[in-house]
């Protein structure tokens, strides 16, 4: 509330009894920081600042570590607890809960981050130890000015938003809807189904992707609690956990959804044929009005104004779809415009999936230049009985079956020129494709791999099976795919795969008819903007960042926003389904709880000190500050306040207090960090 100098105040207040705990985190902290020295610094050097005991322990977050704190609170009457360990974003909750259990207000517990901010980022042991001491000193001074707070409770809206209708999003949406809660599923494409709908077979059991996916899609389409918004995108998210307001932009289909029966006559009659870059991966065609695939849900066509004659050549031309539409009224509406709808939801599941790595970015593999270089997705569509070749595997001419095929793994993955990470699915996808090529064409197949990663149930068995089927495996990174023979002894008209075979230690040039690039997977091209919309961040590689890489890969740093599927990182279908189900479980837990406890970080105005200058009035983006003209003072609505503290920092009279991050706490922390709380003789060097 006030930013008066510190020294005066403490003497007036009751003497605090502070317990300091320094965590080793195994060797994570203790390997770099002299933990004992930090303990003694707090216990001896800061005795005068209210530290009554100082301990170090191997794992403070363990049950034993927590019990240690609880016991000390009871036995030593601690009034403040300072834990020097990891980032508060990881274990603040753990230690606050421990304090709460022992009867100490949880907000009187302070974390000093000496792992992420010291031990893990510094190598000089002395400098790291000195910095750790300063951070502990800052936390102690800050804790002296902490005050007991109560969490703020808000109700949770039982409706949920799921973004993305791939397998992960479908799983999450269905599980929540099955529990009887309303779910809005927003999908950018005209149909749900995602990438899985493009596949032919799924590894390792080789069941048909459509056979196992279609029932889920159909269920989503007809579920009484599940509301589909396909061909739609989330534009804006406002509010906070429990009470989000989401604006969804529905793109025009130019088809009346509630009239169209999905009979398909319009598609049949449409004279415009264009390459289908989306569902058919560029090797098949679609009409200007089209259904992405036969099992699409909802079973509605969508008109593409960029290729439709009506839009290209002016009104009055063509209109075949409209002329032949049998419904009454006519389902075609050329004047449809985009619409915006608002949804109120309590929780959000983000399952926005991935983009395929663009193989054109590796020119030495020739994709886009050499006709018989294909991507895995092109081959996937070729294998599919409903695909452009009716299930036949052919060269680009559409007729000739290849006699030899090279499948290159890790295209765009595990390569510092493109993506450092492993795409997780390419090994198994390449094995699956090798099997399908062998099975359908009998061609010689060479798989070029760096490492074969066939972890998880039944995967390695599948690898053994493919080996037994006579597929050749060459361990080495392919340097180039070239159509130019090296010498007169090499035949023209072949593709030469130049590779170092690291198992036999030589360079090889393997002639093949067809090359398949097993492209990796990448974050969605617009993941960053989507992240901004939902208030979550992307990692350096572009995947959405989960709350904790191991212990909480479902949640995000933004309360109420959960992740499922490849949006969080590369994963296969079983893992995506598991994560979708896990996200659903989290949401259901929230709905079941009915209300949420929020951090009590809020601003408030002392009416006695407020002069009514109205500087703060324009600063709050949540409109939490109002002016009482009669009383001549401003006031803050704590239900609307989000706790950013901007008004606290702006008030010229110092009349606005910010709980949790008060001026006293911050100023005291500065003193602590700069060690002005020590006598000069004790100052650290």
């Amino acid at each position, binding site marked *: 509330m006030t930013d008066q100098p510190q020294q005066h105040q403490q003497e007036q207040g009751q003497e605090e009894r502070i317990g300091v705990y320094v965590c080793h985190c195994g060797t994570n902290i203790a390997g770099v920081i002299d933990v004992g020295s930090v303990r003694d610094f707090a216990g001896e050097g800061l005795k005068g600042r209210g530290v009554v005991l100082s301990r170090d322990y191997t794992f403070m977050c363990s049950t034993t570590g927590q019990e240690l704190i609880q016991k000390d609170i009871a036995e030593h009457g601690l009034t403040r607890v300072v834990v020097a360990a990891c980032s508060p974003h990881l274990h603040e909750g753990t230690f606050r809960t421990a304090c709460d259990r022992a009867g100490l207000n949880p907000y009187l517990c302070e974390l000093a981050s000496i792992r992420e901010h010291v031990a893990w*980022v510094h190598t000089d042991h002395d400098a790291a130890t000195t910095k750790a001491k300063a951070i502990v000193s800052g936390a102690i001074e800050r804790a002296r000015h902490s005050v007991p707070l109560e969490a703020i409770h808000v109700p949770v809206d039982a409706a949920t938003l799921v973004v993305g209708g791939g397998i992960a999003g479908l799983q999450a949406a269905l599980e929540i809807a099955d529990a009887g809660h309303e779910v809005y599923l927003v999908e950018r494409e005209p149909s749900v189904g995602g990438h899985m709908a493009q596949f032919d077979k799924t590894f390792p059991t080789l069941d048909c992707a459509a056979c196992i996916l279609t029932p889920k899609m159909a269920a989503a389409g007809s579920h009484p609690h599940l509301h589909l918004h396909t061909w739609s995108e989330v534009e804006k998210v406002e509010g906070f956990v429990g009470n989000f307001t989401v604006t969804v932009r529905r793109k025009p289909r130019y088809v009346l959804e509630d009239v169209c029966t999905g009979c398909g006559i319009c598609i049949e009659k449409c004279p415009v044929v264009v390459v289908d870059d989306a569902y058919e991966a560029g090797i098949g065609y679609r009409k200007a009005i089209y259904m992405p695939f036969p099992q699409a849900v909802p079973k509605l066509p969508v008109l593409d104004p960029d290729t439709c004659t009506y839009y290209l050549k002016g009104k009055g031309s063509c209109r075949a779809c409209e002329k032949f539409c049998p419904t009454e009224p006519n389902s075609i509406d050329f004047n449809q415009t985009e619409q915006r709808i608002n949804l109120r939801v309590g929780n959000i599941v983000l399952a926005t999936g991935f983009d395929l790595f663009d193989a054109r970015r590796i020119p030495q593999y020739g994709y886009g230049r050499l006709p018989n270089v294909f991507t895995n997705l092109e081959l996937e569509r070729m294998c599919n009985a409903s695909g452009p070749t009716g299930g036949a595997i052919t060269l680009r001419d559409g007729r000739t079956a290849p006699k030899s095929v090279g499948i290159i793994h890790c295209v765009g993955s595990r390569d510092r020129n493109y993506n450092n990470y492993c795409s997780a699915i390419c090994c198994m996808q390449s094995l699956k494709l090798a099997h399908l090529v062998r099975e359908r064409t009998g061609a010689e197949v060479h798989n070029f791999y760096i490492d074969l990663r066939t972890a998880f149930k039944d995967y390695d068995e599948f690898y053994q099976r493919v080996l037994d089927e006579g597929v050749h495996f060459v361990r080495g990174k392919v340097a180039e795919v070239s159509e130019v023979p090296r010498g007169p002894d090499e035949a023209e008209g072949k593709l030469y795969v130049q590779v170092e075979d690291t198992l036999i230690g030589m360079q090889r040039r393997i002639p093949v008819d067809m090359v398949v690039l097993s492209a990796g997977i990448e974050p969605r091209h617009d993941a960053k903007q989507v992240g*901004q919309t939902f208030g979550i961040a992307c990692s350096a590689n572009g995947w959405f960042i989960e709350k904790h890489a191991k212990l909480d890969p479902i949640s995000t740093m933004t309360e109420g926003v959960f992740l499922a599927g490849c949006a969080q990182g590369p994963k296969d279908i079983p893992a995506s389904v598991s994560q979708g189900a896990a996200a659903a479980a989290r949401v259901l837990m929230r709905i079941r709880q009915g209300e949420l406890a929020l951090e009590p970080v809020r601003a408030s105005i002392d009416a006695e000190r407020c002069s009514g200058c109205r500087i703060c009035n324009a600063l709050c983006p949540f409109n939490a500050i109002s002016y009482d003209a009669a009383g001549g003072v401003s006031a803050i609505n704590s239900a609307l306040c989000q706790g950013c503290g*901007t008004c606290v920092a702006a008030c010229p009279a110092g009349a606005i207090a910010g709980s949790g991050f008060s001026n006293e706490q911050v100023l005291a922390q500065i003193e602590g960090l700069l060690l002005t709380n020590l006598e000069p003789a004790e100052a650290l060097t």
Partner: protein
Amino acid sequence: MANDFEPVIIGFTCNWCSYRAADVAGTTRLKYAPNVRLIRLMCSGRIDPTFVLKALADGADGVLITGCHPGDCHYLEQNYKALRRHRLLQRTLAQLGVEPERVHLTWASAAEGAIFAATIDRFVERVRALGPLRWPARPKPLPVAVAPELAEEALP
């Protein structure tokens, strides 16, 4: 002198972006100079010039202010307030003879651990090149010449 001088720097971070960037730098084990001691605030909009002046007055050689990128603020646009305060404070500090470079404002998203680490390294070197600030310590509590209780006899 310059070689032995290890600057002491106070860094202000926001809970949503830059503090998390520091966390990411940690979890990815990036290495950077140990001279910056961080304070977590909820938002860079919480930055009060008082905090910066307090840090300088109490012995910091530099102050690093960090927040979410413009447009990325968790609280929509409060980082612009930090930007404005920083620019005004810079002007005043320049008049007081404090090199504006000592108080640096930078943006870092939660994903930018590497950028955050590199920014710290660069800033530490910049402050090192400027040399110590060594603001004179605040006056110590004063010895009272006499501590006269308001004596009874002084009153009639």
